[in-house]
């Protein structure tokens, strides 16, 4: 049961998550490899709007990023970090096996290039603390120049969003 825990016990997050499934699965917006870079997502009006909606309406806890947790040289980006934290939650805590994150390092970057095929990974499950720490360490050490998302949907594979068992009775 514990591996079903996730932070998507929030209707706003579910709607946001669903938006990404539709965007990636039922549109021709993604590149050939099925990915969109962060910059492309933010340039897409509906997606930008959905991230803002999640940011405005989700639980306080999902918006909260402690300043102390952010390295000094990135604190200048705190407003952007807080704005993008709901998207990070959808990617890391949605308990969807279908979210993948890819990247280009500074050495590999050139405009109009998609993620290195070997860089794709799926965020570890919420309860897999060890793997999540390793993934965080990896992201920290890579020197990432561009980041990409690939999100499948329940239409292409059997995925069920499981709520935490503590969802209050309605």
């Amino acid at each position, binding site marked *: 049961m514990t591996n079903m825990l996730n932070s998507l*016990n929030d209707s706003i997050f579910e709607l946001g998550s669903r938006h990404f499934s539709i965007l990636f699965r039922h549109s*021709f917006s993604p590149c050939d490899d099925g990915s969109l870079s962060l910059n492309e997502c*933010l340039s897409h009006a509906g997606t930008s709007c959905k991230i803002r909606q999640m940011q405005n309406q989700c639980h306080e806890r999902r918006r909260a990023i402690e300043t102390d947790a952010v390295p000094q040289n990135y604190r200048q*980006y705190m407003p952007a970090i807080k704005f993008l934290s709901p998207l990070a*939650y959808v990617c890391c805590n949605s308990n969807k096996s279908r979210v993948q994150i890819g990247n280009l390092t500074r050495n590999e970057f050139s405009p109009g290039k998609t993620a290195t095929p070997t860089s794709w990974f799926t965020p570890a499950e919420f309860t897999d603390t060890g793997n999540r*720490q390793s993934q965080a360490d990896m*992201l920290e050490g890579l020197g*990432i120049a561009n980041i990409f998302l690939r999100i499948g949907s329940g239409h292409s594979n059997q995925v069920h969003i499981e709520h935490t068992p*503590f*969802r209050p009775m309605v």
Partner: protein
Amino acid sequence: MPKVFSKPPGSERSDTARGFRTPQGDRLEHTPRGGRSDRSDGRRGRDDREKETRDRMIEDAFRQPLEIIRPNVSAFVQALIAVLRKNGAVQTDDEYAQFPE
């Protein structure tokens, strides 16, 4: 009983070809909703022309230089790291009770 009924008015564009039967007299309305690849009952597939395509803005965003995209990418990477490290999801009902609906 005729093998083929005429279509009811207004059903020309409907998903299900109502009233049709096979030459053997079987009704076709039990075709799975997902459809079969040959679509022998005449239902229309999803029209790709209605799907959103890559517009100019997305294409331009794809080709932005590093200096333009770096702030947002750095911020998102830091957000991912923070979320992966803090595991800030609701785990107990006491924690859940801290947040109003």
